[in-house]
């Protein structure tokens, strides 16, 4: 039974950590497919996580959360999406209207977000209180479905770390695929990322499309921030541990396409989980002669990704016009 339990834990944790990567990488995909490099994903995640965690704490204090836990979680997700979208407007304004360098704007926002989060957390919780604790009712347990608790493989697999964000991520993934490839809007968005002048010549408003792309990435990035915070467990500490940058890597790894991004995020999360639980997985070699051997496993996801990227980089294809501000007069 022990083996089954470990396997269930492993898969559960992989899915849990794949969710933020998937959501944020999908967000990055929307932004870059519309032609705006979104380095600010990390900052968007932090802002989304900050606002939604404050919402969760507020709901907890108001007593709504305990009575209707999943309604509270849904509100938090909506708040995360809205705050991420509002924050991403800053990037959109600088890079679309002012035609500023998109990397600069993104870097500035990445700096702004954690600092803003810390200052706001201090302001709300008092001096030196840097952690926003997430209420325990956010997790979906067996009680929500009225199922008897048991130590079986499937219950360990599903209920050990099951949050509403996972469900939302699945829904959003399907929605993202449909929007990107099956709607008029998606086609126009992609056109703006490939050749905005051509798109403009057939009457598509490039500015509007790029705004839409960046704001969708804000929505997904904000929800991803909340998903990361509930996955990381201990509460929100004004940081998402570089997951925004990881998501960027996942997006490039996933070749700017939804299904490959799904595969890439699962792959990356699996290696990440193996890295952090390496000492509790029995069948891995433990490198007894090397001290602090956990670093070998922590390095693993990055090494594997680099190798895969080297092997597949010939096929990788970025949107043509990404990073170039749209200028009507340009040839």
């Amino acid at each position: 039974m022990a083996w089954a339990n470990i396997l269930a834990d492993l898969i559960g944790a992989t899915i849990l950590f794949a969710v933020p990567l998937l959501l944020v990488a999908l967000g990055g995909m929307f932004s870059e497919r519309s032609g705006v490099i979104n380095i600010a994903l990390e900052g968007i995640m932090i802002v989304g996580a900050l606002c939604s965690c404050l919402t969760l704490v507020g709901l907890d204090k108001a007593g709504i959360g305990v009575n209707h836990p999943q309604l509270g979680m849904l509100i938090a997700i909506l708040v995360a999406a809205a705050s991420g979208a509002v924050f991403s407007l800053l990037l959109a304004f600088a890079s679309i209207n002012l035609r500023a360098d998109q990397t600069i704007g993104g870097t500035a926002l990445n700096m702004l977000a954690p600092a803003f989060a810390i200052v706001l957390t201090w302001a709300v919780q008092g001096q030196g209180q840097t952690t926003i604790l997430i209420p325990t009712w956010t997790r979906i347990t067996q009680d929500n479905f009225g199922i008897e608790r048991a130590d079986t493989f499937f219950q360990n697999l599903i209920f050990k770390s099951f949050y509403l964000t996972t469900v939302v991520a699945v829904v959003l993934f399907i929605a993202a695929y449909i929007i990107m490839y099956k709607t008029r809007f998606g086609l126009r968005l992609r056109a703006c990322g490939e050749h905005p002048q051509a798109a403009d010549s057939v009457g598509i408003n490039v500015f509007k499309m790029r705004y839409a792309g960046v704001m969708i990435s804000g929505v997904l990035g904000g929800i991803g921030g909340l998903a990361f915070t509930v996955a990381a467990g201990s509460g929100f500490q004004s940081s998402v541990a570089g997951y925004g940058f990881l998501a960027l890597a996942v997006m490039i790894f996933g070749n700017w396409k939804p299904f490959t991004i799904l595969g890439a995020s699962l792959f990356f999360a699996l290696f990440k989980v193996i890295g952090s639980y390496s000492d509790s997985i029995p069948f891995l070699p433990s490198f007894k002669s090397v001290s602090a051997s956990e670093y070998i496993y922590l390095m693993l996801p990055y090494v594997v990704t680099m190798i895969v990227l080297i092997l597949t980089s010939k096929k990788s294809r970025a949107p043509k016009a990404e990073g170039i501000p749209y200028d009507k007069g340009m040839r």
Partner: protein
Amino acid sequence: MFNWLGLFMVNLLLNNMPKMLANYWGATNKDRTASLATANKSALIPKAGLDKLLDSNYMNISIFIAIVIAIIIYIILEKMTFGYELKACGFNKDASIYAGINAKRNIVWSMVISGALAGIGGGIYYLSGTAQYTLVKSLLTMGFNGIPVALLGASSPIGIIFAAIFISYIQVGGEALQPEYAKEIIDIIIAVIIYLSAFSLLVKGILSRVMKGDTSNVNADEPVPITPPTGVKTGNAAGKVVGDAAGEVVKPIPADRIDHGETAKPIEASAKQPDTAAGIASESEEGGDK
């Protein structure tokens, strides 16, 4: 990717090297490298009396090392063929390949140089003896702060000297705010400064309109590569040349490739002009390396 790779690799190496960690040298903590003052005093960067002159323990000659390196980089970038080729690749890779520059080699070189400079930065920081490397699983913020410094210095080596001093000045000021206020307020200030530097395009457009005294020209902030942007102070005839050069920045390079040195100067001059004239269009494009 390589951020984390480097981090974990260094942590792994430090853990497995004898005599590296602080606990070998009598300290209690195992999570950081040995303090250089106890382990090996001769490895410290010499202070050359500057600490007595300025009455500060933090002072050593590394500031001069940094400034000298900045000047060397300036000379390489502005006065040498190699630097010109590097910049040409940054402006337009395809055009520089067309002009006979080995763009791939130049891009690799630029990465090598930036890695070397970042390495010197890390070395100087820890060899000053005031800080110990801590084995943590998160990245140092200083590496990321280098990006805004470069942007604030408008990607010019000389500008970066002053930008670096400015940013570290307000950061040290932030440490002094500490008990009453969160020092992250400083990060907010820096972030806002950099974000607003993106507005320079807007301000330049307004300025050029005001200077020309022509408010009806809606194209003032929308420079087209072929025609000279309005509000450039360098007369009309020069503006024409500038406009052409802005369109095809690297056109004159083949001549430069043939004989080095002598001809580099006039070409340099013609390459610098689009910098100022079309600066409105290509403002801070140099800093766009991710």
